[in-house]
Each structure stands twice: as structure tokens, then as C-alpha cells.
């Protein structure tokens, strides 16, 4: 049995949620989709805030729902972060944090850890109305962690914040990602957040799951190109492996090769994510010496499929085990005689470092 197993069906006027999902036991799973696709409803069903009669739910080693059995929310070992922090206005920050602690028998030391993890030590004596939106959300995340949850559910925790506040919180979310051993389910409609945080991607549309799998694999699927924002593309986990001081570049090493990117001052050995959009990747049959393109790699065509426009194709190229997606015109594909299994040179024009 998978760490999280959910079979839920819920009919509302004009909306049906119909989901059969198994999720990994750690890392961040992003529930991604347009508004109205049922991501938040699914999350609320998992938390027991919404009832999907007759569903089945197995989380963190316990059955939460099965047939007529329905474990109420307050007995489920979960942490929940609402879109707007939802702190108790009648309690100061310390007592907001202690509210769940007292009810779940958490030790003092965990409070100190959570305060450090989210950088909210200095806010303890303040009241919720005197905090900025970003501070409130950090407190809400700490509060959710302080019930010793078996799973952390986050409902668009950044959606209500402006860009600057988002940038303020994202590093804390990345720390959660590195330090927590529990699975995190993260609802988002923001491509940037998903590219930056997710390990596992569940794409939803009209109440159904249309794609589900590890992030880079799912993004590289050509049968249903998942557009994170404006374009199809892939996200690759890498580590900063070298620095070229003279040209202000760093080398990001990934499973299948290396990429040179602009030096943003990251330390060597730091894990990074890079995003490569399909439109920035071109293919060549032979190695070209004379090009301005910095990142050239050898790969093998894995699959070619039609793109949205009849003039274009998408090609998935396997570069040492890492998939990279390229967009090219059908004429070019025909001129190069591309077919699966064929070796090609991959030219990557732009690589974006994210986090």
C-alpha cells in the first residue's frame, strides 16, 4: 500500500470530483491545475473538512475514511495551512502556536525548532493583526507543524501574498522540503511555485487527475504537454559543480550532463533547479563548432509528437537519462530525418535557475 491512497467521489451542482490517487511518502507533491479544477476540494476532502460519502482514504498508516467510516478532522494526524493564514484573532502568536501543541502533546523543543525553521522567534508576543501577510503565513505553517502531523496539507499558501512576500516565504518552504520527512501536499496554480518546490506532480482538470508522476518525467510527457505557464518545458535537479570566475558562470551538474548558467552567487555543492523551456531547445544532426550556444549536449531522440500548432512538433530527447523537450517545426524534423532512437546534438539557448 502506498503512503497516501485516496479514492474520492464528490458531486456538487455542476462539479464532480472523481479521483483515484496514490502519492509518495515524502517530498512535495504539487496539486496543479486551473481554478475550479478541484484541487482545493480534494485537499479539503483529505482533511475531512469536506465529506465525500463512500470514499476511501488511507494516510500516514491510518484509514481515515472507508465506506461509512469517517474519521473527523480533529482526529486525523495532519497539518493544514490555509490560503489566508487563518490565525485566531483573539490569541497572540505564542498562544496561536500553543493551541495545537497543547492538544497533541508536542514537546517544547519542537517549538524552538519550528520557530527557527520559519524565522518567527521575534513575533511571539505580537498579535495576528500586527503582522504582515508573509509573517502571518509563516506563523500558520509553524502552527500546522506543531501538531506533529503525518502529512502537511497546504492550500495555495502564497496565493494571497504579493510578489515580494512570496519571495520572502519561498526560501522557508524550500527549507521545509529539505528538513521534513513527512509528505507535503501543495495546492497551487502557480507554475513558478511548482517548478521550484515540487518533486511529484499531480495535474488536475475538471475534478479529475489528468497526469500524475515525478516532476521531470511528468513535465516531459508529450502526450499531454503540461504547460507550466507560457510554455512546455522541463525542470531538472542539479548541483553547482564549478565556478568560472572570469566569465561569471557556474556549472550545474545533473544526472545526464552539465549546464553553464549565469553566476548568481550560489555556493559550490548547492542543490539547484533549472528550467529549460521547449522553445529554447534546438536540435542538430551533427556537432557544430561555430555557435554562440553555450550548452551543447549529446542525446537520443526518445519520442516525437505533434504540438498544438500543425506546423510544429515536440521532441523528447534523452540526455544521459534526463529528458529534455524541444520544440521544432515539422519541416526541420523532416529535413533532419528525426526518428526515435536517433542520436542528436541538443542546443540549449536559455537555462533558468530557479531556487
Amino acid at each position, binding site marked *: 500500500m502506498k503512503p497516501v491512497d485516496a479514492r474520492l467521489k464528490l458531486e456538487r451542482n455542476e462539479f464532480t470530483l472523481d479521483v483515484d490517487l496514490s502519492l509518495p511518502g515524502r517530498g512535495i507533491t504539487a496539486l496543479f491545475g486551473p481554478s475550479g479544477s478541484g484541487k482545493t476540494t480534494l485537499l479539503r476532502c483529505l482533511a*475531512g473538512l469536506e465529506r465525500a460519502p463512500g470514499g476511501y482514504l488511507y494516510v500516514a498508516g491510518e484509514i481515515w475514511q472507508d465506506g461509512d467510516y469517517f474519521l473527523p*478532522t*480533529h482526529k486525523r494526524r495532519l497539518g*493544514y495551512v*490555509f490560503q489566508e493564514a*487563518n490565525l485566531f484573532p483573539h490569541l497572540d502568536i505564542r498562544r496561536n502556536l500553543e493551541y495545537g501543541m497543547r492538544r497533541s502533546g508536542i514537546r517544547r523543543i519542537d517549538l524552538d525548532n519550528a520557530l527557527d525553521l520559519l524565522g518567527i522567534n521575534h513575533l511571539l508576543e505580537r498579535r*495576528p493583526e500586527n503582522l504582515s501577510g508573509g509573517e*502571518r503565513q509563516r506563523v500558520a505553517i509553524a502552527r500546522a507543524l506543531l*501538531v506533529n502531523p503525518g502529512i502537511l496539507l497546504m492550500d495555495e499558501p502564497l496565493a494571497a501574498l504579493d510578489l515580494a512576500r512570496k519571495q520572502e516565504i519561498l526560501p522557508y518552504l524550500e527549507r521545509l522540503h529539505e528538513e521534513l520527512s513527512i509528505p507535503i501536499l501543495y495546492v497551487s496554480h502557480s507554475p513558478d511555485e511548482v517548478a521550484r518546490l515540487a518533486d511529484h506532480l499531480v495535474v488536475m482538470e475538471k475534478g479529475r487527475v489528468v497526469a500524475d508522476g515525478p516532476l521531470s518525467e511528468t513535465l516531459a510527457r508529450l502526450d499531454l504537454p503540461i504547460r507550466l505557464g507560457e510554455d512546455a518545458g522541463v525542470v531538472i535537479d542539479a548541483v553547482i559543480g564549478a565556478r568560472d570566475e572570469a566569465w561569471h558562470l557556474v556549472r550545474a551538474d545533473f544526472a545526464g550532463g552539465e549546464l553553464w548558467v549565469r553566476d548568481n552567487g550560489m555556493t559550490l555543492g548547492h542543490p539547484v533547479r533549472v528550467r529549460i523551456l521547449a522553445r529554447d531547445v534546438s536540435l542538430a544532426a551533427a556537432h557544430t563548432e561555430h555557435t554562440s550556444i553555450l550548452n551543447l549536449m549529446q542525446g537520443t531522440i526518445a519520442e516525437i509528437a505533434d504540438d498544438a500548432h500543425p506546423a510544429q512538433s515536440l521532441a523528447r530527447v534523452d540526455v544521459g537519462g534526463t529528458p529534455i523537450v524541444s520544440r521544432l517545426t515539422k519541416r526541420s524534423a523532416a529535413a533532419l530525418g528525426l526518428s526515435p532512437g536517433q542520436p542528436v546534438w541538443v542546443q540549449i539557448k536559455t537555462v533558468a535557475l530557479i531556487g
Partner: protein
Amino acid sequence: MPTSEDFGAIRLTLELATVVTLLLLILGTPIAWWLARTRSRLRSSVGAIVTLPLVLPPTVLGFYLLLLMGPSGFLGHLTQSLGLGLLPFTFPGLVIASTLYSLPFFVQPLQNAFEAIGDRPLEAAATLRASPLDAFFSVAVPLAKPGFVTSSFLSFAHTVGEFGVVLMIGGNIPDKTRVISVQIYNHVEALEYTEAHWLAGGMLAFSFLVLVAMNALKPRQKAAEP
């Protein structure tokens, strides 16, 4: 100057209003909570029954209560079989009638306060391991404090000022059922206008002070979360 009978009426009235308000806190709070939260189809009917004393003439309410608590009424049978005798023309009878009569004045402000809290703080409490009862006392009650203040003051003041129901149920027995409003009526009947002035003026001042205190105790509306 007020007579000793007047002071007896004042003492009795304050006793009655205190007991009724405490009773309403115990009985009216769950009703207000249920009305604010339920999705039951019975909601509008129960709401109407609770509100009925607001529009019903006190004499009508008093008349039916008198029948109900009388020797051949359901409540009368019950109290007699329990060896408690009959309720009309007793202090407990007044308490029951006044509690019913003041019910809408207690339930409505509190129901509004509970509704204003919304689902979200209670959902947050549930995800923080609070059972529904725990969340009620640790989240809903503190957040609805202004509602409790308004409801208690209104029902206290309303009970102090009631006349029709008391006259129908309790009559005019000194130190047992003779409250201030009935005593004012007695004075006026007897053309004792000076004594009537003392009590009437006192009631006016009292009512004014209750409203001032209620507004002073109400916490200022805090700025909403952006």
C-alpha cells in the same frame, strides 16, 4: 420617597432579571449556536418559534402559559405529579414566563455574532486537534464575546421592564411576584404620582445606563485582516 413595598419590588425585579439572564446563557446559547450553524430544514421553523415572543402581545403569551402551567395544562400536570404544586402566581412561574419572553432578545444578537465568525476559525481549530466542543469554548465563545455582552444586557434590561406577561402569570403579590412595572401601575391606579415618579424615573435612568454600558463594553471593531 420610595416605600418599603417599592424596595421589595426592586429587589424582586433584579432577582428575576438575574436568574432569567443566567438561564438564558445556559439555554439560549446552544439554541443560538444551532441556529447559526445548522443546515437542517427545521432551522427556519425553530427560528420563527424563538422569535415569536418578539411580535406576540405579552398578554397572548401569558394567557397560553397560564393555561399550560394551570391545573389542567401539561406543565401543570407535570409539576403537580413531581410534588412541586402549580407554577402560576409563584416566582419560578415568573422565571419560566420571562425566560421565554426574553428568548429572542438573547438568541438573535448571539446568533448574529456566531454567524459572523464563519467556518474558517473553526476549521482551523479542527485541524489543530480541537474537538467540536473544545473549538466552541476555545474559539467560538471568545470570538463571540461582543454578542454575549449585547445578548445578556438586552435580555436583562428587557426582563426588568416587562409587564404584561408578569401580570398574566404572576399577578400582583408583594415580595413574590410584584415587580417594578406592576408596582408603578399600582401607584398610578392609586393616583400616587410622586411614588410612581420615583420608580418610573429610576427605570428610565437604569435603561439609559444599560445602553451606555453596553456600548462601552463592546470592543471597537478591529481592522479586518487584509
